[in-house]
């Protein structure tokens, strides 16, 4: 509805919508919802840049960003300190938060579509644990590897990408095994999926325990970070290393929207309407592993975002994946930045691990989801 229409026009349009049901009200609400999610992500990003030990006015933040991009403004007088805080400390953290949140929520939405179940969250069913274990393996054994082969000496470039690549491989392995274990004749057993997730979580826990035992002090500090999840270590280098993997998810996911919609009818019906089911599943699993792996590599295990965001959005804008996937990305980014804001301000100057904040929000939601939908989740 364009601005400037009078009330009469509003009524006429409302009547027209009812008389000609072709232009679904749901479609328009979904578009509005998508726009709202994008606005929310933008607002969260600005808040994340402005709020902290030093509060910087939003107009200063905008001016700093604008100048950094080469623009010139007559605007406010800005100290070097503010500029450094925004560009070197808060901007990488904010971008990493957006990226991790968007990747986690989108991976959740895609995974739930493939497994046809709203409980199929990468965090819940062991994909993130697999990624974390692989990342920990890389931290502990990668260093030993470099020590054993001093002559070779891994280039710094590979070192930077090694971590997300290892997490990606771990996530891919778990997702692929899960799919084989839990899916039989096109039907996924949710019980098997969740039990397999528990098994993977336990295995990853045991593996991490062994690695903690043999790790050095410095490595131990890095490892603690994995179990809690945090955006605290955000640097531009980390951002650059994770982004190709996240990009892979965002390239793979949107063309899968129709396939994921059709898969909601079951694999047979999806095939009937022309979906190459095996190909779609392979691409989806690769995308989920890339997104979840990169998120874990960059910020550790952050639970529940991939569960909560797509589920709430399905209630708000409907389950159609064409809009659900981008909306999940925006809302996931916004939620993660919001949680990070809480994590770093609630006990300032100390910082709460981000994973604790998302768990505090997500776990009760998960219980509510179970209570409300017991029947059809396991039916």
């Amino acid at each position, binding site marked *: 509805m364009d601005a400037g229409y009078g009330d009469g026009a509003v009524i006429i349009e409302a009547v027209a919508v009812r008389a000609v*049901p*072709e*232009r*679904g*009200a*749901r479609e328009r609400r979904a578009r509005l919802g998508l726009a709202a999610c994008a606005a929310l992500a933008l607002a969260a990003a600005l808040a994340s840049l402005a709020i902290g030990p030093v509060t910087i006015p939003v107009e200063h933040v905008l001016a700093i960003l604008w100048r950094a991009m080469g623009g010139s403004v007559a605007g406010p007088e800005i100290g070097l300190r503010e500029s450094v805080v925004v560009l070197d400390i808060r901007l990488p953290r904010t971008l990493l938060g957006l990226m991790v949140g968007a990747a986690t929520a989108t991976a959740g939405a895609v995974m739930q579509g493939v497994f*046809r*179940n*709203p409980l199929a969250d990468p965090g819940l069913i062991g994909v993130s644990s697999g990624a974390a274990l692989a990342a920990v393996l890389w931290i502990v054994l990668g260093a030993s590897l470099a020590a054993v082969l001093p002559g070779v000496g891994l280039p710094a470039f590979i070192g930077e990408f090694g971590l997300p690549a290892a997490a990606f491989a771990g996530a891919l392995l778990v997702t692929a095994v899960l799919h084989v274990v839990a899916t039989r004749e096109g039907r996924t057993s949710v019980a098997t999926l969740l039990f397999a997730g528990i098994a993977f979580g336990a295995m990853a826990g045991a593996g991490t325990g062994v690695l903690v035992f043999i790790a050095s002090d410095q490595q131990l500090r890095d490892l603690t970070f994995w179990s809690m999840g945090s955006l605290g270590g955000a640097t531009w280098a980390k951002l650059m290393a994770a982004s190709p993997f996240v990009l892979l998810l965002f390239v793979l996911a949107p063309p899968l929207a*129709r396939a994921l*919609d*059709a898969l*909601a*009818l*079951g694999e*047979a*019906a999806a*095939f*009937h*309407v*022309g*979906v*190459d*089911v095996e190909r779609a599943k392979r691409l989806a699993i690769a995308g989920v592993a890339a997104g979840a792996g990169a998120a874990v590599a960059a910020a550790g295990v952050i639970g529940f975002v991939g569960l909560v965001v797509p589920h709430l959005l*399905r*209630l708000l804008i*409907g*389950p*159609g994946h064409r809009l659900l996937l981008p909306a999940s990305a925006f809302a996931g980014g916004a939620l993660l930045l919001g949680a990070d804001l809480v994590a770093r301000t609630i006990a300032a100057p100390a910082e709460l691990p981000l994973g604790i904040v998302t768990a505090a929000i997500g776990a009760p939601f998960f219980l509510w989801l179970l209570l409300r939908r017991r029947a*059809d989740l396991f039916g």
Partner: protein
Amino acid sequence: MYEAQDIDYAVPGRLLLDGADLTVRPGRVTALIGPNGAGKSTLLKVLTGELRPKQGRVLVDGQDIAALGPARLARRRAVLPQDVHVAFPFTVAEVVAIGLPQGERAPHRITGALEKVDLAGFRDRPYAALSGGEQQRVQIARALTQLASCDGPGYLLLDEPTSSLDLSHQLMVVELARQVARSGGGVAAVLHDLNLAAMIADEVVALKGGRIVARGTPAEVLTDALVGELYAVTARIGTAPQTGPFLLPQAMTRA
């Protein structure tokens, strides 16, 4: 023509189809009948391409469906599977729209398809809140939507399309299938109700134990002897002057 030639299909320890042939012709309705476990649904699934036969091949207008790939096959035939469970809270219109080709959005066609199955006012209702029969009609509307996007008149493959429907909507399915045939499409339907099969079909194909045991017009196949042998019952088939053979369950006993 949509042909299955000399199909063998087996699961471990059991041969479900044993040299089955089936031809679905444009402009005609073929009904598949037979007792439980005869292989009707399996044959239909082989026809759709969902199951790959151990031996034999399936051709649509002379092309092997294995070589066509899912997307092109979907432009030749539409399928109504047995009981479809829809994950996530999709609306009726959204479920029907899944029958449209990739990227196409045609709201008027969705409305039209829903009108055809007597669900005109249901488009924005959540699919999960419908009754079993209503859900089955939504799936029929989805299959009709896909059929309308096919290249040429296409083929419609129905697996027990009337299993949840009331009497009036069973007749609706008969009418819809006849309509598709009249406009040049080929229809194959697995049916349990022999009266319905007699009404809907130009050709009835009877299966037992994975083999085709009879094929022909309803009057040729639905005889006392054949129905008796097929289902292990003693049956007396009546013949109505206008509409052909009919069965009264009251006139049957288990053999």
